[in-house]
Protein backbone atom coordinates (compact mmCIF):
# COMPACT_ATOMS: atom_id res chain seq x y z
CA UNK A 1 0.00 0.00 0.00
CA UNK A 2 1.51 3.36 -0.94
CA UNK A 3 1.93 5.78 1.97
CA UNK A 4 -0.88 8.32 2.23
CA UNK A 5 -0.02 11.89 1.36
CA UNK A 6 1.60 14.02 4.05
CA UNK A 7 -1.46 16.28 4.15
CA UNK A 8 -3.77 13.36 4.85
CA UNK A 9 -1.55 11.99 7.58
CA UNK A 10 -1.26 15.42 9.17
CA UNK A 11 -5.05 15.75 9.08
CA UNK A 12 -5.45 12.40 10.82
CA UNK A 13 -3.00 13.41 13.56
CA UNK A 14 -4.76 16.78 13.95
CA UNK A 15 -8.16 15.17 14.32
CA UNK A 16 -6.76 12.61 16.75
CA UNK A 17 -5.30 15.36 18.95
CA UNK A 18 -8.62 17.22 18.86
CA UNK A 19 -10.52 14.10 19.87
CA UNK A 20 -8.07 13.41 22.73
CA UNK A 21 -8.35 17.01 23.93
CA UNK A 22 -12.16 17.00 23.81
CA UNK A 23 -12.27 13.68 25.62
CA UNK A 24 -9.95 14.90 28.39
CA UNK A 25 -12.00 18.06 28.66
CA UNK A 26 -15.25 16.12 28.89
CA UNK A 27 -13.86 13.76 31.55
CA UNK A 28 -12.28 16.63 33.48
CA UNK A 29 -15.52 18.58 33.70
CA UNK A 30 -17.98 15.77 34.31
CA UNK A 31 -19.33 15.35 37.87
CA UNK A 32 -16.71 13.18 39.53
CA UNK A 33 -16.02 15.36 42.56
CA UNK A 34 -17.32 14.25 45.95
CA UNK A 35 -20.58 15.73 47.19
CA UNK A 36 -21.57 16.15 50.80
CA UNK A 37 -24.98 16.07 52.31
CA UNK A 38 -25.91 19.64 53.22
CA UNK A 39 -28.77 21.78 54.22
CA UNK A 40 -31.09 22.26 51.19
CA UNK A 41 -31.08 26.04 51.53
CA UNK A 42 -27.28 26.12 51.75
CA UNK A 43 -27.15 23.76 48.76
CA UNK A 44 -29.36 26.11 46.76
CA UNK A 45 -26.94 28.94 47.49
CA UNK A 46 -23.90 26.87 46.55
CA UNK A 47 -25.24 25.84 43.13
CA UNK A 48 -24.83 22.67 41.14
CA UNK A 49 -21.10 22.41 41.49
CA UNK A 50 -21.40 21.74 45.17
CA UNK A 51 -24.53 19.62 45.18
CA UNK A 52 -24.06 17.33 42.21
CA UNK A 53 -20.28 17.39 41.90
CA UNK A 54 -20.55 18.93 38.40
CA UNK A 55 -17.59 21.19 37.59
CA UNK A 56 -18.22 24.92 37.18
CA UNK A 57 -16.14 24.64 34.03
CA UNK A 58 -18.44 23.90 31.11
CA UNK A 59 -17.80 20.77 29.12
CA UNK A 60 -17.29 20.63 25.35
CA UNK A 61 -20.93 19.75 24.76
CA UNK A 62 -22.08 22.86 26.67
CA UNK A 63 -19.76 25.02 24.61
CA UNK A 64 -20.90 23.36 21.40
CA UNK A 65 -24.52 24.09 22.32
CA UNK A 66 -23.65 27.76 23.01
CA UNK A 67 -21.77 28.09 19.73
CA UNK A 68 -24.71 26.57 17.90
CA UNK A 69 -27.02 29.07 19.60
CA UNK A 70 -24.84 31.99 18.52
CA UNK A 71 -24.47 30.68 15.00
CA UNK A 72 -28.21 30.33 14.62
CA UNK A 73 -28.75 33.97 15.44
CA UNK A 74 -25.56 36.01 15.18
CA UNK A 75 -27.04 39.46 14.54
CA UNK A 76 -29.74 40.01 17.16
CA UNK A 77 -29.75 43.22 19.15
CA UNK A 78 -31.61 43.32 22.45
CA UNK A 79 -30.16 46.38 24.05
CA UNK A 80 -26.62 47.52 24.96
CA UNK A 81 -25.70 44.41 26.94
CA UNK A 82 -27.23 41.77 24.74
CA UNK A 83 -26.11 41.79 21.14
CA UNK A 84 -25.38 38.87 18.83
CA UNK A 85 -21.78 37.76 18.42
CA UNK A 86 -21.89 38.71 14.75
CA UNK A 87 -22.63 42.33 15.72
CA UNK A 88 -19.86 42.37 18.33
CA UNK A 89 -17.34 40.96 15.86
CA UNK A 90 -18.46 43.44 13.22
CA UNK A 91 -17.75 46.31 15.65
CA UNK A 92 -14.28 44.96 16.40
CA UNK A 93 -13.45 44.31 12.74
CA UNK A 94 -14.73 47.78 11.85
CA UNK A 95 -12.45 49.43 14.42
CA UNK A 96 -9.47 47.39 13.28
CA UNK A 97 -10.21 48.21 9.65
CA UNK A 98 -10.38 51.95 10.37
CA UNK A 99 -7.31 52.16 12.60
CA UNK A 100 -5.29 49.80 10.39
CA UNK A 101 -6.38 51.59 7.22
CA UNK A 102 -5.26 54.92 8.62
CA UNK A 103 -1.96 53.37 9.67
CA UNK A 104 -1.41 52.06 6.11
CA UNK A 105 -2.04 55.54 4.71
CA UNK A 106 0.49 57.07 7.10
CA UNK A 107 3.12 54.33 7.41
CA UNK A 108 3.73 53.57 3.73
CA UNK A 109 4.43 57.15 2.57
CA UNK A 110 6.57 57.89 5.62
CA UNK A 111 8.31 54.54 5.24
CA UNK A 112 9.07 55.48 1.63
CA UNK A 113 10.51 58.78 2.77
CA UNK A 114 12.70 57.12 5.38
CA UNK A 115 13.79 54.41 2.96
CA UNK A 116 14.74 56.87 0.22
CA UNK A 117 16.33 59.60 2.32
CA UNK A 118 19.28 58.75 4.58
CA UNK A 119 18.77 62.14 6.22
CA UNK A 120 15.15 61.46 7.20
CA UNK A 121 16.08 57.95 8.18
CA UNK A 122 18.57 59.21 10.74
CA UNK A 123 16.41 62.14 11.83
CA UNK A 124 13.34 60.01 12.54
CA UNK A 125 15.16 56.99 13.91
CA UNK A 126 15.24 58.11 17.61
CA UNK A 127 11.49 58.77 17.63
CA UNK A 128 10.70 55.42 16.09
CA UNK A 129 13.06 53.62 18.45
CA UNK A 130 11.43 55.22 21.52
CA UNK A 131 7.79 55.03 20.43
CA UNK A 132 7.89 51.54 18.93
CA UNK A 133 8.30 49.58 22.21
CA UNK A 134 5.47 51.46 23.98
CA UNK A 135 2.52 49.18 24.68
CA UNK A 136 -0.35 50.50 22.59
CA UNK A 137 -2.64 50.47 25.64
CA UNK A 138 -0.36 53.01 27.33
CA UNK A 139 -1.64 55.49 24.74
CA UNK A 140 -5.22 54.89 25.84
CA UNK A 141 -5.47 57.48 28.67
CA UNK A 142 -3.83 60.11 26.48
CA UNK A 143 -6.20 59.25 23.66
CA UNK A 144 -9.24 59.37 25.93
CA UNK A 145 -8.12 62.74 27.31
CA UNK A 146 -7.43 64.38 23.95
CA UNK A 147 -10.01 62.72 21.70
CA UNK A 148 -12.71 62.56 24.41
CA UNK A 149 -14.43 59.66 22.63
CA UNK A 150 -13.89 56.09 23.70
CA UNK A 151 -14.73 54.62 20.26
CA UNK A 152 -12.25 56.89 18.48
CA UNK A 153 -9.66 56.23 21.19
CA UNK A 154 -9.85 52.50 20.48
CA UNK A 155 -9.34 53.23 16.78
CA UNK A 156 -6.37 55.45 17.64
CA UNK A 157 -4.82 52.66 19.70
CA UNK A 158 -5.19 50.28 16.74
CA UNK A 159 -3.65 52.93 14.49
CA UNK A 160 -0.63 53.43 16.72
CA UNK A 161 0.06 49.72 17.18
CA UNK A 162 -0.29 48.95 13.45
CA UNK A 163 1.99 51.80 12.48
CA UNK A 164 5.43 50.60 13.50
CA UNK A 165 5.84 47.25 11.77
CA UNK A 166 4.56 48.71 8.50
CA UNK A 167 6.72 51.81 8.83
CA UNK A 168 9.88 49.88 9.57
CA UNK A 169 9.28 47.22 6.93
CA UNK A 170 8.43 49.78 4.25
CA UNK A 171 11.59 51.74 5.03
CA UNK A 172 13.64 48.52 5.00
CA UNK A 173 12.12 47.29 1.74
CA UNK A 174 12.53 50.64 0.01
CA UNK A 175 16.13 51.15 1.09
CA UNK A 176 16.93 47.57 0.07
CA UNK A 177 15.85 48.06 -3.55
CA UNK A 178 18.66 46.65 -5.66
CA UNK A 179 20.98 49.36 -6.95
CA UNK A 180 21.01 47.89 -10.44
CA UNK A 181 17.20 48.18 -10.74
CA UNK A 182 17.46 51.83 -9.77
CA UNK A 183 20.27 52.25 -12.31
CA UNK A 184 18.09 50.69 -15.01
CA UNK A 185 15.43 53.32 -14.39
CA UNK A 186 18.06 56.06 -14.25
CA UNK A 187 19.56 55.11 -17.61
CA UNK A 188 16.01 55.12 -19.02
CA UNK A 189 15.56 58.68 -17.70
CA UNK A 190 12.58 57.63 -15.58
CA UNK A 191 11.51 60.46 -13.26
CA UNK A 192 11.48 60.06 -9.46
CA UNK A 193 7.71 59.63 -9.14
CA UNK A 194 7.45 57.06 -11.93
CA UNK A 195 10.51 55.30 -10.51
CA UNK A 196 8.85 55.11 -7.09
CA UNK A 197 5.79 53.40 -8.55
CA UNK A 198 7.38 51.25 -11.24
CA UNK A 199 10.60 50.10 -9.59
CA UNK A 200 10.78 50.79 -5.86
CA UNK A 201 7.19 49.92 -4.93
CA UNK A 202 7.17 46.52 -6.72
CA UNK A 203 10.65 45.75 -5.38
CA UNK A 204 9.66 46.62 -1.80
CA UNK A 205 6.13 45.19 -1.99
CA UNK A 206 6.91 41.76 -0.48
CA UNK A 207 8.65 43.39 2.50
CA UNK A 208 5.85 45.94 2.89
CA UNK A 209 3.25 43.17 2.87
CA UNK A 210 5.22 41.30 5.53
CA UNK A 211 4.97 44.41 7.70
CA UNK A 212 1.26 44.70 6.96
CA UNK A 213 0.77 41.08 7.97
CA UNK A 214 2.59 41.58 11.27
CA UNK A 215 0.53 44.72 11.86
CA UNK A 216 -2.85 43.11 11.29
CA UNK A 217 -1.90 40.38 13.75
CA UNK A 218 -0.93 42.92 16.41
CA UNK A 219 -4.03 45.04 15.71
CA UNK A 220 -6.29 42.04 16.24
CA UNK A 221 -4.47 41.19 19.49
CA UNK A 222 -4.80 44.75 20.75
CA UNK A 223 -8.44 45.37 19.82
CA UNK A 224 -9.62 42.78 22.38
CA UNK A 225 -7.71 44.47 25.20
CA UNK A 226 -8.71 47.95 24.02
CA UNK A 227 -12.39 47.04 23.95
CA UNK A 228 -12.18 45.56 27.42
CA UNK A 229 -11.06 49.02 28.54
CA UNK A 230 -13.38 51.26 26.53
CA UNK A 231 -16.44 48.99 26.81
CA UNK A 232 -19.74 49.37 25.02
CA UNK A 233 -19.39 47.13 21.99
CA UNK A 234 -16.99 44.75 20.35
CA UNK A 235 -15.73 41.25 20.96
CA UNK A 236 -13.31 42.38 23.68
CA UNK A 237 -16.12 44.03 25.58
CA UNK A 238 -18.24 40.90 25.08
CA UNK A 239 -15.56 38.67 26.62
CA UNK A 240 -15.24 40.91 29.67
CA UNK A 241 -19.00 41.23 30.01
CA UNK A 242 -19.46 37.47 29.88
CA UNK A 243 -16.73 37.06 32.51
CA UNK A 244 -18.75 39.40 34.74
CA UNK A 245 -21.79 37.26 33.94
CA UNK A 246 -19.71 34.19 34.86
CA UNK A 247 -20.66 32.70 31.51
CA UNK A 248 -17.59 30.62 30.83
CA UNK A 249 -19.21 29.00 27.79
CA UNK A 250 -19.52 32.40 26.14
CA UNK A 251 -15.92 33.25 27.06
CA UNK A 252 -14.69 30.04 25.46
CA UNK A 253 -16.87 30.64 22.41
CA UNK A 254 -15.38 34.12 22.06
CA UNK A 255 -11.84 32.80 22.34
CA UNK A 256 -12.51 30.39 19.48
CA UNK A 257 -14.10 33.11 17.36
CA UNK A 258 -11.29 35.61 18.03
CA UNK A 259 -8.80 32.98 16.92
CA UNK A 260 -10.81 32.19 13.80
CA UNK A 261 -11.14 35.82 12.73
CA UNK A 262 -7.44 36.46 13.42
CA UNK A 263 -6.54 33.50 11.23
CA UNK A 264 -8.76 34.75 8.40
CA UNK A 265 -7.22 38.24 8.53
CA UNK A 266 -3.73 36.74 8.45
CA UNK A 267 -4.60 34.46 5.56
CA UNK A 268 -6.04 37.35 3.56
CA UNK A 269 -2.76 39.23 3.85
CA UNK A 270 -0.75 36.09 3.20
CA UNK A 271 -2.66 35.75 -0.07
CA UNK A 272 -1.97 39.39 -0.94
CA UNK A 273 1.69 38.80 -0.14
CA UNK A 274 1.85 35.87 -2.54
CA UNK A 275 0.40 38.09 -5.26
CA UNK A 276 3.22 40.63 -5.03
CA UNK A 277 6.10 38.22 -4.37
CA UNK A 278 8.35 37.65 -7.35
CA UNK A 279 10.80 34.79 -7.82
CA UNK A 280 14.35 35.91 -8.46
Amino acid sequence: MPPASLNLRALIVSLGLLAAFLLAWQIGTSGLAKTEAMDPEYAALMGTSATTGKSAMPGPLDVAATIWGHLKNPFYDRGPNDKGLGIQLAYSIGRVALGYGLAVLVAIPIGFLIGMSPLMSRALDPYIQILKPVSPLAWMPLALFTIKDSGLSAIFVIFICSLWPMLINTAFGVSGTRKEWINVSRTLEVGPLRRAFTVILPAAAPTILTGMRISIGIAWLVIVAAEMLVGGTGIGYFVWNEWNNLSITNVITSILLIGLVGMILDQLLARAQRLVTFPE
Partner: protein
Amino acid sequence: MNALIPFPARRAMRPAELPEPGRMSSDKFISIEGIARRYPAPGGKQTTVFENLWLPMRRGEFVCMIGHSGCGKTTVLNILAGLEAPSEGVVIADGKAIEGPSLDRAVIFQGHALLPWRTVLGNVAYAVSSRWRKASRAEIEERARRAIALVGLAGSEHKRPAELSGGMKQRVGIARALSIEPKMLLMDEPFSALDALTRGTLQDEVRRICVETGQTVFMITHDVDESIYLADRIVLMTNGPGAKVAEIVENPLPKDRTRTGLHRQPGYYALRNHLIDFLVSRSKTLRDESPPGYDQRHPPVVRLTLTEADAAAAALG
Protein backbone atom coordinates in the same frame (compact mmCIF):
# COMPACT_ATOMS: atom_id res chain seq x y z
CA MET B 1 21.25 67.55 -35.83
CA ASN B 2 21.51 63.83 -36.10
CA ALA B 3 18.79 63.38 -33.51
CA LEU B 4 16.29 65.03 -35.84
CA ILE B 5 16.74 62.43 -38.54
CA PRO B 6 14.44 59.42 -38.02
CA PHE B 7 16.32 56.42 -36.75
CA PRO B 8 16.10 54.16 -39.85
CA ALA B 9 17.63 56.93 -41.92
CA ARG B 10 20.48 57.32 -39.47
CA ARG B 11 21.05 53.62 -39.58
CA ALA B 12 21.24 53.58 -43.32
CA MET B 13 23.80 56.37 -43.29
CA ARG B 14 26.18 54.76 -40.89
CA PRO B 15 28.12 52.26 -43.00
CA ALA B 16 29.19 55.06 -45.35
CA GLU B 17 30.43 57.08 -42.40
CA LEU B 18 32.55 54.27 -41.04
CA PRO B 19 36.17 55.32 -41.24
CA GLU B 20 38.77 53.07 -42.70
CA PRO B 21 40.50 51.14 -39.92
CA GLY B 22 43.67 52.83 -38.84
CA ARG B 23 42.76 56.20 -40.29
CA MET B 24 42.10 58.67 -37.51
CA SER B 25 38.70 60.21 -38.09
CA SER B 26 37.85 63.73 -37.05
CA ASP B 27 34.33 62.52 -36.21
CA LYS B 28 34.77 62.23 -32.47
CA PHE B 29 31.40 60.88 -31.45
CA ILE B 30 32.49 60.33 -27.86
CA SER B 31 35.43 62.10 -26.35
CA ILE B 32 36.69 61.29 -22.89
CA GLU B 33 38.70 64.33 -21.89
CA GLY B 34 41.01 64.12 -18.92
CA ILE B 35 38.69 62.36 -16.52
CA ALA B 36 39.80 61.23 -13.05
CA ARG B 37 38.18 59.26 -10.30
CA ARG B 38 39.28 59.66 -6.70
CA TYR B 39 37.91 58.15 -3.53
CA PRO B 40 38.55 59.39 -0.01
CA ALA B 41 40.95 56.99 1.70
CA PRO B 42 41.50 56.57 5.45
CA GLY B 43 43.82 59.17 6.99
CA GLY B 44 42.39 62.07 4.99
CA LYS B 45 44.23 60.91 1.88
CA GLN B 46 42.74 60.15 -1.49
CA THR B 47 42.96 57.07 -3.64
CA THR B 48 43.19 57.86 -7.32
CA VAL B 49 41.78 55.02 -9.37
CA PHE B 50 42.72 56.75 -12.61
CA GLU B 51 43.45 60.29 -13.68
CA ASN B 52 43.96 62.35 -16.82
CA LEU B 53 42.31 59.69 -18.97
CA TRP B 54 41.76 60.62 -22.62
CA LEU B 55 39.97 58.50 -25.18
CA PRO B 56 38.18 59.45 -28.38
CA MET B 57 35.65 57.14 -30.02
CA ARG B 58 34.28 57.30 -33.54
CA ARG B 59 30.70 56.78 -34.54
CA GLY B 60 29.91 53.17 -35.39
CA GLU B 61 33.03 51.93 -33.68
CA PHE B 62 33.21 48.92 -31.36
CA VAL B 63 35.68 49.60 -28.55
CA CYS B 64 36.64 47.04 -25.92
CA MET B 65 38.42 47.98 -22.73
CA ILE B 66 40.66 45.37 -21.11
CA GLY B 67 42.39 45.55 -17.78
CA HIS B 68 42.69 43.86 -14.43
CA SER B 69 40.17 44.33 -11.64
CA GLY B 70 40.59 47.62 -9.84
CA CYS B 71 41.76 49.64 -12.83
CA GLY B 72 38.49 51.54 -12.92
CA LYS B 73 36.98 50.01 -16.09
CA THR B 74 33.51 49.88 -14.61
CA THR B 75 33.88 53.44 -13.33
CA VAL B 76 34.76 54.62 -16.85
CA LEU B 77 31.65 52.86 -18.14
CA ASN B 78 29.47 54.34 -15.38
CA ILE B 79 30.79 57.80 -16.20
CA LEU B 80 30.00 57.22 -19.89
CA ALA B 81 26.51 56.08 -18.84
CA GLY B 82 26.10 59.16 -16.65
CA LEU B 83 25.51 57.05 -13.56
CA GLU B 84 28.64 58.44 -11.89
CA ALA B 85 30.30 61.83 -12.22
CA PRO B 86 34.06 62.04 -12.79
CA SER B 87 36.10 63.79 -10.07
CA GLU B 88 37.79 65.79 -12.82
CA GLY B 89 37.41 66.19 -16.56
CA VAL B 90 34.45 65.78 -18.88
CA VAL B 91 33.07 63.36 -21.40
CA ILE B 92 31.64 64.87 -24.56
CA ALA B 93 28.99 62.78 -26.29
CA ASP B 94 27.71 63.94 -29.67
CA GLY B 95 28.87 67.49 -28.99
CA LYS B 96 27.46 67.80 -25.48
CA ALA B 97 29.01 67.16 -22.07
CA ILE B 98 27.50 64.17 -20.27
CA GLU B 99 25.73 65.40 -17.16
CA GLY B 100 23.60 62.40 -16.29
CA PRO B 101 22.07 59.23 -17.66
CA SER B 102 20.53 59.51 -21.09
CA LEU B 103 18.32 57.40 -23.32
CA ASP B 104 20.94 58.00 -26.02
CA ARG B 105 23.31 55.65 -24.20
CA ALA B 106 21.88 52.26 -23.28
CA VAL B 107 23.61 50.09 -20.69
CA ILE B 108 23.75 46.31 -20.72
CA PHE B 109 24.49 45.39 -17.13
CA GLN B 110 26.77 42.58 -16.02
CA GLY B 111 24.01 40.98 -13.93
CA HIS B 112 21.30 41.51 -16.59
CA ALA B 113 19.35 43.71 -14.07
CA LEU B 114 15.92 42.63 -15.31
CA LEU B 115 12.95 43.61 -13.18
CA PRO B 116 11.88 40.18 -11.87
CA TRP B 117 8.23 41.12 -11.38
CA ARG B 118 7.82 41.95 -15.06
CA THR B 119 7.65 39.54 -17.96
CA VAL B 120 10.16 39.60 -20.80
CA LEU B 121 7.76 41.77 -22.78
CA GLY B 122 7.10 43.93 -19.70
CA ASN B 123 10.81 44.55 -19.16
CA VAL B 124 11.43 45.59 -22.75
CA ALA B 125 8.16 47.57 -22.93
CA TYR B 126 9.22 49.47 -19.80
CA ALA B 127 12.27 50.74 -21.66
CA VAL B 128 10.28 51.45 -24.84
CA SER B 129 7.62 53.41 -22.94
CA SER B 130 10.36 55.41 -21.22
CA ARG B 131 11.87 56.31 -24.61
CA TRP B 132 8.58 57.16 -26.33
CA ARG B 133 6.45 58.55 -23.52
CA LYS B 134 3.47 59.40 -25.68
CA ALA B 135 3.42 56.26 -27.81
CA SER B 136 0.27 54.13 -27.83
CA ARG B 137 0.21 50.78 -26.05
CA ALA B 138 0.06 48.95 -29.36
CA GLU B 139 3.10 50.81 -30.68
CA ILE B 140 5.07 50.14 -27.50
CA GLU B 141 4.25 46.44 -27.64
CA GLU B 142 5.10 46.30 -31.33
CA ARG B 143 8.53 47.87 -30.77
CA ALA B 144 9.18 45.63 -27.75
CA ARG B 145 8.24 42.52 -29.70
CA ARG B 146 10.55 43.54 -32.54
CA ALA B 147 13.47 43.98 -30.12
CA ILE B 148 12.73 40.60 -28.52
CA ALA B 149 12.61 38.93 -31.93
CA LEU B 150 15.94 40.58 -32.82
CA VAL B 151 17.71 38.68 -30.04
CA GLY B 152 15.91 35.44 -30.93
CA LEU B 153 13.51 35.27 -28.02
CA ALA B 154 10.22 35.44 -29.94
CA GLY B 155 7.76 33.13 -28.18
CA SER B 156 9.12 33.82 -24.69
CA GLU B 157 7.49 37.24 -24.32
CA HIS B 158 5.28 36.24 -21.43
CA LYS B 159 7.86 34.39 -19.37
CA ARG B 160 9.27 35.94 -16.23
CA PRO B 161 13.03 36.34 -15.79
CA ALA B 162 13.09 33.56 -13.17
CA GLU B 163 11.88 31.12 -15.84
CA LEU B 164 14.77 31.98 -18.18
CA SER B 165 18.32 30.63 -18.35
CA GLY B 166 21.24 32.99 -17.75
CA GLY B 167 21.86 33.39 -21.46
CA MET B 168 18.21 34.15 -22.18
CA LYS B 169 18.13 36.74 -19.39
CA GLN B 170 21.13 38.50 -20.90
CA ARG B 171 19.41 38.38 -24.31
CA VAL B 172 16.47 40.21 -22.74
CA GLY B 173 18.95 42.74 -21.32
CA ILE B 174 20.34 43.23 -24.84
CA ALA B 175 16.82 43.50 -26.30
CA ARG B 176 15.93 46.10 -23.69
CA ALA B 177 19.02 48.14 -24.53
CA LEU B 178 18.45 47.89 -28.30
CA SER B 179 14.72 48.62 -28.04
CA ILE B 180 15.32 52.27 -27.21
CA GLU B 181 17.44 52.66 -30.38
CA PRO B 182 20.35 54.24 -28.51
CA LYS B 183 23.16 56.11 -30.19
CA MET B 184 25.59 54.11 -28.13
CA LEU B 185 25.65 50.78 -26.31
CA LEU B 186 27.60 50.38 -23.08
CA MET B 187 28.31 46.83 -21.95
CA ASP B 188 29.89 45.90 -18.63
CA GLU B 189 31.26 42.37 -18.97
CA PRO B 190 27.89 41.31 -20.33
CA PHE B 191 28.79 37.65 -20.90
CA SER B 192 31.11 36.97 -17.98
CA ALA B 193 28.46 35.11 -15.97
CA LEU B 194 27.56 32.76 -18.84
CA ASP B 195 28.88 29.34 -19.79
CA ALA B 196 31.28 29.20 -22.75
CA LEU B 197 28.75 27.82 -25.23
CA THR B 198 26.10 30.44 -24.47
CA ARG B 199 28.73 33.15 -24.42
CA GLY B 200 29.82 32.18 -27.93
CA THR B 201 26.32 32.33 -29.42
CA LEU B 202 25.60 35.64 -27.72
CA GLN B 203 28.87 37.10 -29.01
CA ASP B 204 27.74 36.07 -32.50
CA GLU B 205 24.37 37.76 -31.98
CA VAL B 206 25.92 40.95 -30.68
CA ARG B 207 28.42 41.09 -33.52
CA ARG B 208 25.69 40.47 -36.10
CA ILE B 209 23.43 43.17 -34.65
CA CYS B 210 26.23 45.70 -34.26
CA VAL B 211 27.60 45.16 -37.77
CA GLU B 212 24.11 45.31 -39.28
CA THR B 213 23.09 48.49 -37.48
CA GLY B 214 26.46 50.24 -37.25
CA GLN B 215 25.99 50.61 -33.51
CA THR B 216 28.64 52.46 -31.51
CA VAL B 217 29.67 50.21 -28.64
CA PHE B 218 31.89 50.50 -25.59
CA MET B 219 32.42 47.19 -23.88
CA ILE B 220 34.37 46.06 -20.86
CA THR B 221 35.70 42.53 -20.90
CA HIS B 222 38.24 40.22 -19.33
CA ASP B 223 38.12 37.86 -22.25
CA VAL B 224 40.92 38.42 -24.76
CA ASP B 225 39.28 36.36 -27.52
CA GLU B 226 35.99 38.17 -27.02
CA SER B 227 37.70 41.50 -27.58
CA ILE B 228 39.54 40.23 -30.69
CA TYR B 229 36.30 38.94 -32.17
CA LEU B 230 34.13 41.96 -31.38
CA ALA B 231 36.27 45.05 -31.14
CA ASP B 232 37.58 47.42 -33.80
CA ARG B 233 39.94 48.89 -31.22
CA ILE B 234 41.04 47.45 -27.90
CA VAL B 235 41.92 49.86 -25.10
CA LEU B 236 44.45 48.46 -22.64
CA MET B 237 44.32 49.79 -19.10
CA THR B 238 47.26 49.43 -16.71
CA ASN B 239 46.65 48.19 -13.20
CA GLY B 240 45.11 50.49 -10.63
CA PRO B 241 45.32 52.54 -8.53
CA GLY B 242 46.69 55.27 -10.74
CA ALA B 243 45.60 53.40 -13.85
CA LYS B 244 46.05 54.87 -17.31
CA VAL B 245 45.43 53.93 -20.91
CA ALA B 246 48.63 52.11 -21.80
CA GLU B 247 47.88 51.80 -25.49
CA ILE B 248 45.10 51.43 -28.00
CA VAL B 249 45.44 48.36 -30.19
CA GLU B 250 43.86 48.43 -33.64
CA ASN B 251 42.27 45.16 -34.65
CA PRO B 252 43.80 44.13 -38.00
CA LEU B 253 41.38 41.24 -38.61
CA PRO B 254 38.90 41.65 -41.48
CA LYS B 255 35.35 42.90 -40.80
CA ASP B 256 33.78 39.63 -41.97
CA ARG B 257 35.64 37.52 -39.38
CA THR B 258 33.77 34.67 -37.71
CA ARG B 259 34.17 33.45 -34.16
CA THR B 260 35.01 29.90 -35.18
CA GLY B 261 37.45 30.94 -37.89
CA LEU B 262 39.15 33.57 -35.77
CA HIS B 263 42.29 31.59 -35.07
CA ARG B 264 42.92 31.02 -38.79
CA GLN B 265 42.98 34.74 -39.55
CA PRO B 266 46.37 36.25 -40.26
CA GLY B 267 47.30 38.55 -37.41
CA TYR B 268 45.26 36.70 -34.84
CA TYR B 269 48.18 35.20 -32.94
CA ALA B 270 50.19 38.40 -32.93
CA LEU B 271 47.23 40.26 -31.52
CA ARG B 272 46.38 37.59 -28.98
CA ASN B 273 49.95 37.26 -27.75
CA HIS B 274 50.24 41.01 -27.47
CA LEU B 275 47.08 41.25 -25.35
CA ILE B 276 48.04 38.34 -23.13
CA ASP B 277 51.56 39.68 -22.65
CA PHE B 278 50.01 42.92 -21.61
CA LEU B 279 47.69 41.34 -19.07
CA VAL B 280 50.41 39.10 -17.67
CA SER B 281 53.23 41.58 -17.21
CA ARG B 282 53.10 44.90 -19.05
CA SER B 283 49.89 46.03 -17.32
CA LYS B 284 51.97 46.33 -14.16
CA THR B 285 55.29 47.56 -15.55
CA LEU B 286 53.65 50.23 -17.68
CA ARG B 287 51.86 51.64 -14.67
CA ASP B 288 55.06 51.91 -12.65
CA GLU B 289 57.13 53.27 -15.52
CA SER B 290 55.77 55.08 -18.55
CA PRO B 291 57.68 54.53 -21.81
CA PRO B 292 59.60 57.57 -23.10
CA GLY B 293 57.44 59.99 -25.03
CA TYR B 294 54.25 58.68 -23.44
CA ASP B 295 51.47 61.27 -23.58
CA GLN B 296 48.28 60.57 -21.65
CA ARG B 297 46.32 62.77 -24.04
CA HIS B 298 47.40 60.69 -27.01
CA PRO B 299 48.04 57.14 -25.88
CA PRO B 300 50.13 55.14 -28.37
CA VAL B 301 48.11 53.40 -31.09
CA VAL B 302 49.45 49.95 -31.90
CA ARG B 303 49.14 48.04 -35.18
CA LEU B 304 50.78 44.66 -35.05
CA THR B 305 52.80 42.93 -37.71
CA LEU B 306 52.29 39.24 -38.47
CA THR B 307 54.13 36.66 -36.40
CA GLU B 308 55.46 33.38 -37.68
CA ALA B 309 52.50 31.56 -36.18
CA ASP B 310 50.20 33.84 -38.15
CA ALA B 311 52.09 33.22 -41.32
CA ALA B 312 51.85 29.47 -40.72
CA ALA B 313 48.14 29.73 -40.01
CA ALA B 314 47.62 31.81 -43.13
CA ALA B 315 49.54 29.27 -45.20
CA LEU B 316 47.36 26.45 -43.85
CA GLY B 317 44.12 28.40 -44.31
